[in-house]
C-alpha cells in the first residue's frame, strides 16, 4: 500500500501550497480479545494530518482516544489498517525501527507528566536531547527551561515542583528536540482550570513559533474548539467535527 499523499513525499516534491501529510491512518482498527469475547476499541478510523496542523481528539472516557494516540505515534501495533508516520508505513517497521523513527522527531506530553523522579528539571529536559545525540544538549535544555519560565528551578526535582510546573518541564522536554510532531494525551487533565489554561497557552505559543504538528487528546471542549481540526470518537468510531 502506498501512502495517500505519496506524491507529496519528500516535501520538496510537493506543490508549494499543499503541506505534506505527516500522520495518516487508513481503516485503522484495534481489537483486543478478552477471555470470552473480542472487544473493539477502534473501528475503521480514517485520518490524515498535514504538517503544522493542530488536531484535537475528543470523546468520552473509554472511547479509545489514548489508544488511537498510541497507535499514531507508533507505540503499539494495530489489529488491522495502516498508519503512515512521517512518510513511513509503520506496519513495515518493527518495534526498534519505529523507535528510531521517533527519535528526535516526535515529542510527547502526558497527563501524568512522566518526569524522571530522581532527576532535576534541567536533566529531565536533557534526556531526549542526549538520547538523540545532540551535541548542544546543555544549551538547548537551558534555553527551553527559560522558554517555560523555570530557569530558577533548574536544579529541583519533580517532587519539589507543583503539578503545573511539572507539566511545563514536560512541555519543554517535548519541544527540546524540535520535533516534527508533538503528541499530547490530556496535558491538562491533572491540573486545575487556571493552570490548565496557562499550559494550553504555552503549548499553542510554542507550537506557533516552532511550526510543530500538534495532535492532542482532550476532554476540554474549550481547548478543542481552539484547534484547527477536531476528531471525535464515540465507542471507537471516529468522525471529524467541524471546528466552530
Amino acid at each position, binding site marked *: 500500500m502506498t501512502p495517500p499523499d505519496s506524491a507529496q513525499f519528500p516535501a520538496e516534491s510537493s506543490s508549494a501550497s499543499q503541506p505534506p501529510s505527516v500522520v495518516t491512518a487508513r481503516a485503522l482498527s484495534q481489537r483486543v480479545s478478552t477471555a470470552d469475547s473480542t472487544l473493539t476499541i477502534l473501528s475503521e478510523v480514517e485520518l490524515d494530518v498535514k504538517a503544522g496542523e493542530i488536531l484535537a481528539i475528543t470523546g468520552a472516557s473509554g472511547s479509545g482516544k*489514548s489508544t488511537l*494516540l*498510541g497507535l499514531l*505515534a507508533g*507505540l*503499539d501495533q494495530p489489529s488491522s489498517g495502516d498508519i503512515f508516520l512521517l512518510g513511513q508505513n509503520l506496519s513495515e517497521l518493527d*518495534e*526498534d525501527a519505529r*523507535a*528510531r*523513527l*521517533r*527519535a*528526535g*522527531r*516526535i515529542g*510527547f506530553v*502526558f497527563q*501524568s507528566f*512522566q518526569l*524522571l*523522579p*530522581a*532527576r532535576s528539571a534541567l*536533566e529531565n529536559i536533557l*534526556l*531526549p536531547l*542526549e*538520547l*538523540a*545525540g545532540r551535541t548542544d544538549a546543555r544549551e538547548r535544555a537551558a534555553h527551553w527551561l527559560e522558554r517555560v519560565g523555570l530557569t530558577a528551578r533548574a536544579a529541583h526535582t519533580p*517532587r519539589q515542583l507543583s503539578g503545573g510546573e511539572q507539566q511545563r518541564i514536560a512541555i519543554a522536554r517535548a519541544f527540546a528536540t524540535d520535533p516534527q510532531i508533538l503528541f499530547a*494525551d490530556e496535558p491538562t487533565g491533572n491540573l486545575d482550570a487556571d493552570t490548565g489554561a496557562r499550559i494550553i497557552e504555552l503549548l499553542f505559543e510554542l507550537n506557533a513559533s516552532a511550526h510543530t504538528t500538534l495532535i492532542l487528546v482532550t476532554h476540554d471542549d474549550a481547548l478543542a474548539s481552539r484547534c484547527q481540526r477536531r476528531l471525535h470518537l464515540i465507542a471507537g468510531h471516529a468522525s471529524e467535527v467541524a471546528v466552530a
Partner: protein
Amino acid sequence: MRFMRLGLWLLRRERSSGEWRVLLLALIIGVGSVSTTGFLGDRLKRAMGEQGASFLGADLLVTSSRAIESWPASSTQNIPAKSSPLSTSSLATSQALEFSSMVAKGDAFQLATLRAVDAAYPLRGTVRIAPQPFTESTSRPALPPPGAIYVAPDLLPLLSANVGDSVQIGEASFTIAGVVAEEPGQLGGVFGLAPRVFMRADEVERTHVLQPGSRVTYLYQFAGEPNQLTAFSATLKPTLDSTQRLIGSREGVETLRGAFANADRYIQLTALISLLLSVAAIAIAAHRHALRHYDQAALMRCMGATTAQLRTLYAVQLLTLGVLGSLIGVAIGALMQQALALLILPDAATRLPSLGLAPVGIAVVSGLLALAGASLPALMRLIRVPPLRVLRRDLPPLPLGAWISAAVSGSTLLLLIAWYAGDAKLVGVFVGALAGLVLVLTLLARLALFAGRGVQRLSHGPVRFGLAQLLRHRFDSTLQLGAFTLALFLVALLALVRSDLIAGWQQQLPPEAPNYFLVNIAPYQQAAVADYLSQHQLKASELYPMVRGRLTIKNGVPIASTLPPELRDSNTLRRELNLTWTATLPANNAILAGQWHGTHNAAEISVESGMAERLNLAVGDQLGFQIGDQTLDARITSIRSVKWDSMQPNFFVIFAPGQLDALPAAAIASVYVPPGASGMLPGFVKAFPGVTVLALDKLIANIEAVFAQIIGAIQLLLGFLLAAGMAVVIATLLASLDARQQEAVLLRTLGAQRAYLAKSLWSEFLALGLLAGLLASACAEIAMALISDRLFELPARLHPWLWLALPLAGALLVGMSGWLTTRHITRVPPMQSIRALG
C-alpha cells in the same frame, strides 16, 4: 558510545538510590568473601610452587624407616652408604636422621623433632639461623658446631631456656647455639606439634636415644643434573620396598599441593556460599530497580531509544557497578586475607610471597557472573518494556518466560559453582546440599511464620501491627528468615565444632584416665620401666611392644587390587601400622566376631572393626604384612571394637604372642599421673633418657590451638556470610519500602504517633531476628549432634547458651539492618510522603 555515556550519566544521578547501594553492598560482600580465600590460597600455593626443590631441601629425596645399606650398582660410588664415604660424585648427596625425643632442661622437658644432619644439608634451599628469636637471621648450613644444637624458637619458652643454655637430649648435653628462622619444607611452625631441633649426625650415638625398634626416618638427599637424576631414580626405584619412598622435588610439592588444593577448595566453597547469598540480595535489588525503572525505560523507548540502545545503556550501568563492586570487594579481600594469613602463620609477611594478580581476575569475574546471574532477568524485562506503557501505566512489561529467567540465572550460577567446585561430583554434592538446605530452611521458615500467627493474635497495638507485616509479606519473610538462619547456623556450627569436640572429649574421660603416654621404651628398659611405675604406685597400662609394618597382601593377592579404586589410597594401606602382640584382650576392646587368640601361639591376628569394614576383611582372611625387610603372614581369627578415645594405647592389628618376638620392638604404655605426683616426671625422663613422654593434656591443648586457628580463620570468612545475610534482609525490606511508606503515611494521617510506627517496625524486625536465631539454634544442635555421633563418636549434648546467644545476635543484626533501612518512614511528615508517592 552515546548510550554508554548516557548510561553512566543516569547511573551517576542514582548512585544514592537504595537498590544500587544494596546491590553494590551485596556484591562487595560476595566478592570480598571469595577474594579473601582466593588471595590466601594463591599465596600459599605459590609459596609451595616457588620453593620447588628448596621445598624438599633437595632435587631428590629418599625416605626410609631403616638405613639403606646397598645402593644400585650403577651409582654406588655416588651414594652415602655407610661403607663408602661421600665421594667425588657427580650427584651431591646428604643424609639425615629424623626422630622424636625429649629435650630437658632442669625439671622442664619437651618432646622435639630432631633432625641429625651432615655438613651438606640442605642441598637445595636455605636454613636460616638467628642468634636470638625474632632477630636478624643469616643463611648457613644446618649443621651446628660440635656439642651444639639449633632449635625452633617455640622450644625456648617451653623449656624456659635461652640461647646459650645447656640442655639434655638422652644421655648427652648440648648447648643451644641459635634458633631456626627458616628451613626447607616449612611454611610456618604452627602446625608442627613438636618443635624442630637440628643436631649433628655424628652426635646421635652419644645421646643413646636410638635403640632397636625406635622410630626413625632416614632421609637421603640428592642433587645434580636433571639427566643424571633421572637415570639414578630409574635404577633406584625398583630396589625400594613399600616402606621406602622416593620423592622428586616436583612430586614432593605436587603431593602436598594436591592435599592443599583439596582443603583450599572446600574453604573456597564456603566463601562461595556468601557470594550466593549475595546473589539473592542482588536479585531482589535488581528486581526492585527494574520495577522502579519501567517508566523510565518506557519513556526512553517512546523518545526513540531502541532495545539495543537500552541494552547498551543498562549493560554499561551494570558493568560499572559490577567492576566497581568487585574491585572494592577485592580490596577488602586483600586486607582480610592478610589478617587470615597472620592468624595461620604469624610470620606470614616474610614467609609468603606477595599478593598475586590471578585472584583479582578470578574474583572480578566471579562478581560479574554473580551480578549477571542475579540481575539479568530483571534487566531483560526492563529492556523489553512496551513503549505504550507511557499511556497505559498499568501495562506490565512483557513477561519474560519464567523458564528463560530460571535458565539464565541457573546456568550462570551453576557455572560459578562448577568453577569453584572443580569436579562434577563436588558440584553435584554442593548443589544438592544447597538445594536441600534451601528446602529445609524454607519449610522451617514457613513453619515458624505459621507459629508466629498465634503469637500475633495474642499481641496487641504496634506489636500486633508489626507482626502482621511479617506475616503479610510471606515470601519476603521466608527469604529473610532463610538467609539469616543459614548465616547464623553456619557461624554457630563452627563455634560448636571448635569448642565441643575437645571439651566433649575431655569431659567424658573417666577421672583417672591415663594422661601420659610413654613411647619408645627400648626392650632392655621395659622391665625397669615397669618396676619404676609400680614403685611409684602409678596406674599404668600394660607395656605393649610395638613394631611398624604395612598391610600389603590379602589371601595371596595385593590388597589394593581387592578394593575399589577410591579406597586404594586409604591411609590404612599407605601408612605403616603399629602392630603389637598380647595374650590378653585390652581393657577397652570387645570381640565382635571370631575368637580372641589368647595365648594360642600361632600366626593369628585380631583386627579392629572399622579397619575390617573399610578394607572388607573378615574372620578367616589371610593377611600379609611387610615389616622392615621381611614379610609375615597371619590369619584373622577375631574382629574387635576399640574405644579410640579411651587414652589407652590402641591398635588396629594385634598378633598372637610369639609371632613378632624376634623383631626389635620398642614398647608403649599409658599411665595416669595424679596432679600431685607430676614432680616425679623429670626424674623419669632422666632415668630413661630414650623414652618419650607425651603429656596428653598438652598434646590436646596443642591440637586444640591448631584447630582453633584454622576455625578462627574460617569464622572470619563467616563474617562475610552474616553480612550477606544482612544484605538480603535489607534488599527485601527495600523492595517493600514503597508499600510500607504508603501504609505509614496512611497511619500517620489517621493519627498514629511516630512512636507507634517505630514500635511496630522494631517488633517486626526483632521477631524476625529472634526467629532466625531460634531456627539456627535448632539447626546447629541437630547438625552438631550428627557430627559428634557420626564423625567423632561422642554423645550429643545440648548447648543452652546457644539458644540465648543466637536469637540475641539475630535480633540485634536484623533489627539493625531493618531499622537502618526503614527508619525514615517514621520521620517523614505525612504531607511530604504523600507528595513523594504522587
